[in-house]
């Protein structure tokens, strides 16, 4: 299949769990753990889907998403945002920044798998 997902997240055990679930489903999972050069990693990998955490060292997920949407080559890329806060404010900010989907931690594995699949189909 070779569908690629880029996971931008800084918590090692979360990375490991998500990588495991998606790999089992046939995804090629690449990871990146800091905010500062996350957009460079996106340009280099050109993944089919991005999973982006909001709280990252160096740069916030909102800023990264804004940069992605501002780049014509990346603007259409599906982005699933993860946040530890379910506040409506965060959801609004994610929507405004152009997130394709938004999910609060803790999430269920089935949920994340389902969402990532859907994001590629549409």
């Amino acid at each position: 299949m070779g569908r690629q997902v880029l996971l931008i997240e800084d918590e090692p055990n979360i990375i490991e769990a998500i990588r495991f679930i998606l790999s089992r489903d046939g995804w090629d999972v690449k990871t990146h753990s800091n905010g500062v050069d996350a957009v460079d990693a996106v340009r280099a990998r050109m993944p089919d889907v991005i999973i982006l955490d909001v709280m990252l060292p160096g740069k916030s997920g909102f800023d990264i998403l804004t940069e992605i949407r501002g780049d014509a080559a990346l603007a259409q890329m599906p982005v699933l945002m993860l946040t530890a806060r379910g506040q409506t404010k965060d959801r609004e900010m994610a929507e405004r920044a152009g997130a394709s989907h938004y999910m609060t931690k803790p999430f269920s594995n089935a949920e994340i798998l389902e969402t990532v699949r859907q994001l590629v189909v549409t």
Partner: protein
Amino acid sequence: MAESSIIGTRIRERRIQQGIRQSELAKQVGISPSYLNLIEHNRRRIGGKILNRLAEVLEVEPSLLSEGAEAELIATLNEAAAGRSGAGERAEEFAGRFPGWAQLLAGLHHQNATLEQSVRTLTDRLTHDPHLAASLHDVISTVTSIRSTASILVETKELEPEWQGRFHRNINEDSTRLAEGAEALVRYLEAAPDTGAEIKSPQDELHAFLSEKGFHFPALEGEASDAMVEVVLQSADSLQSEAARQIARDVLYQYRRDAEALPLRDVLEAVGRHGVAPERLSEALKTDLATLFRRLAMLPEAEVGLVGLAICDGSGTLIFRKPLPEFSMPPVGSACTLWPLYQVLAQPQTPVRALVRQVGRDAQVASALAVSEEVRAASFSQPALMRAHMLILPAAGAAQDDARDVGVTCRICPLATCAARREPSIIEGGF
């Protein structure tokens, strides 16, 4: 207004009744006979310390001398009654007939306001506390990892032993982290009630401190160095929170700069010659009005009489409050939009002088002088930062007709028709 209701007249009556000579009373109170003479002829308004000392020597309750205090009590009673149907009528009669009960009620009302403020502060703290937010984020991250890993372990059929071992280790690691995080949270929340002791807003603490000192700091006058600011702060017991100390520090440094620009002796000499007449004083002392206003409001009351001052920042929030008996200022939130203070915020280059009258019972006319000050110059990246200053001077005897009706703040304002109203008043009826 009846002659007898004026403080000076009451003091004079009482002194003559007691058979004390003017010079004798002045000596006992520690003011000059000429100043007492001005007070007795209602040419200087007094309050606070001097009033209390006069009352003590004359052996009367200060409230009997000061109609201002009574007016304040009645205003507090009205405020307390507001919003509760049936109450609030005849507050004046109540205060007159049962002064002790009225004081008690007013005291309880103040306490209530303080408690409400504490609840707000606590709620704020929960929502904006960075430590709490970070701890919660940590806990949620760990829970996410545990949940995801655990469900892999349960749901994956035929999981390879290496993976199984790895995920077990991860869960173990994460559960330790979670336990530590939860423990830290509990410790933090348990300790929280002690950290702020009695929770007042920093602004309340600052103003309690300033009124305690009579808004004047002899230690910061003359050749005092900036280091004295810290000395003054160290002995200030009423400043309990670090936040209050910080804003008090700013106020005292400003005081030092103002005292350097306008040395005490020069200002007092100019006041002696011109009276408390800001425009003439600013010419004589060659200074800007905002500096002069701050200086006048923070001179000893025995030298200049009562001088009120309100300062607000660009958002309209009052950051410095020194009310007068005839001009109240809201302890929290924003004041009445009709104050000249806000006029100069909108038109910074145009100082405003106006007679104002705060509506309510026994409304008295005061003279308000407002001026804007630039606290940071504009640049291409940032606009100028402005602060508005409004000096309030007693103006007993001024023509009532020329005065502008203003309020304190909408909630307790009886002005029936006011285009500037932003919320309904809790006072019914009006005056």
